[in-house]
């Protein structure tokens, strides 16, 4: 197997007596969409925080693109090409959609100690930002304040901002959260369109989306990875089915049928 883009080795994180990440080993391969699923409280959010740099693991190491990043700040990881979206929509509501994306472009266009020229007239920021918005299907909404966009559009904008930093790895924290059926379908199409060009780690509850998109799936339960494999392997895995009892089991089945 080729060198993984992102590697987690023996990651541990606990809050008091609560173990959120328990000796986690995980390799994310170049160009794949790797979904991480698990019941509530499985430690998905804690894991995202450790990958993005908000939380330091108690033990273990994380390496990205062949470099150890365990102790790097959030901003430094972003500079290396690790972009993320947030579970709670994190856009700048006072700024227009274009401003939001232009800010993301600016983040990776050298330092921002530029005090005099108005950023609004800066073609070096506006043009690439406009292109990303077009690509993501928000071109017509470019000059709309982000607060006026629909929930689905805001989620798209969130992805657009992450893409505008030209990352090699995209960490998506529940991109379908709070979305209707149509909006989810649009998001799936959007992610499919960028598939292959970059590596995606996808944390998601929507099983239809996970099975439609993922190349590989890791199932997290109580901070441990109980299984990693291709979607059909995960579907057939007895331990996974045991973890997803009741209604969750049903949703796993229906997703399996839909993609059969």
């Amino acid at each position, binding site marked *: 197997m080729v060198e993984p883009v992102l590697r987690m080795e023996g990651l541990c994180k606990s809050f008091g007596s609560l173990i959120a990440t328990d000796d986690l080993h995980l390799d994310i391969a170049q160009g794949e969409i790797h979904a991480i699923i698990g019941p509530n409280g499985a430690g998905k959010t804690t894991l995202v925080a450790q990958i*993005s740099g*908000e939380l330091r693991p108690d033990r273990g190491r994380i390496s990205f693109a062949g470099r150890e990043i365990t102790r790097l*700040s*959030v*901003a430094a990881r*972003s*500079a290396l090409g690790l*972009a*993320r979206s*947030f579970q709670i929509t*994190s*856009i*700048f*509501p*006072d*700024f227009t959609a274009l*401003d939001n994306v*232009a*800010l*993301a472009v*600016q*983040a*990776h266009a050298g330092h*921002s*100690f*530029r*005090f*005099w*020229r*108005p*950023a*609004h007239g*800066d073609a070096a*920021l506006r043009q690439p930002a406009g292109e990303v918005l077009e690509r993501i299907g928000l071109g017509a909404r470019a000059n709309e304040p982000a607060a006026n966009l629909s929930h689905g559009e805001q989620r798209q904008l969130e992805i657009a*901002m992450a893409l505008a*930093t030209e990352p090699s790895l995209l960490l998506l924290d529940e991109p379908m959260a709070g979305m209707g059926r149509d909006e989810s379908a649009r998001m799936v199409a959007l992610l499919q369109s960028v598939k292959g060009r970059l590596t995606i780690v996808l944390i998601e509850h929507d099983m239809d989306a996970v099975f439609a998109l993922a190349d590989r799936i890791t199932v997290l339960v109580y901070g441990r990875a109980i299984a990693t494999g291709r979607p059909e392997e995960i579907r057939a895995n007895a331990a996974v089915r045991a973890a997803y009892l009741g209604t969750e089991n049903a949703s796993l089945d229906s997703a399996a049928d839909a993609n059969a």
Partner: protein
Amino acid sequence: MNRRQIWLTLITLTLFALVPPLTSIFGQPFYVDLMARIMIFALAAISLDFILGHGGMVSFGHAAYMGIGAYTVGIFSYYGIDNGFIQFPLAIAAAALIGLIFGALSLRTSGVYFIMITLAFAQMLYFLAISLEEFGGDDGMAASRSKFAGLIDLNDSNQFYYLVLACLALMLFILHRLVQSRFGMVIRACRTNEKRMQALGFQTYRYKLTAFVIAASMCGLSGALFANLNEFVSPDAMHWTRSGEIMIMVIMGGIGTLIGPVLGATGFLLLEEYLPEWMEMFMTDAGEHWAIVMGPILIVIVLFGRGGIHALFARKWLARGNGHG
């Protein structure tokens, strides 16, 4: 800053510029000093508005930088150096340096802790000034007006007035550009969601610290002017209530609007000046209790006048715009 704010700024500055000729027509030269005082506080208020309104940094120790600027002028004057070309740049530099140190430490915290630590640093300087017996301690010390040989004569109150106005106009222009620059976008976005900015790859601490130092140095300039206006400096310039007053000017005028705090400073200081007189008209000796009326006025403005004085103008103009459309 939108077009409306630019117009409001130009109108306000024009009105300020008309004060000296008007007061000489009406034979009321006293107003020139009052208005100069207002503009000096307006300068301090816009520097606070830059980090508070645009950067979301609630600095509760802004008077410290005004005090540093004032004391720099005062101390030079004490040692017989009244050259403004030396005093003013050093007053600004000293405020910037203290801002760098205080900011570097304060910005490691956020929220209530940031407010408390900036307040604590300012109080530290206040008590330091009190302990400096050499420079008058509690009582403060006299300072002669700075000399800008061959340029202007600050002993002429009109010339001093126009220097203050020029400083205010220049700083408004600089901040106006700053807010819209790449740097300004970073600062404004940090106010909304700093975590998101870090995830985008911005080292937010550096940008916020730079903004903090810029604000401190501008406030240092206002302090240098303040020492010249009073021909006197004292620790009172740094007391925490002074920091509170500057913040009230910003809130009263409209946070994050730049011209708002100028109007806020005007409103606040005019009230402070005339409220006692007006109260005397209703009841003898009521004037000394002016704060009893001032307090409720401020509460009403904060509770019901969201957006401050600036919003008052904005709303009016908006209504007129709709009428035409």
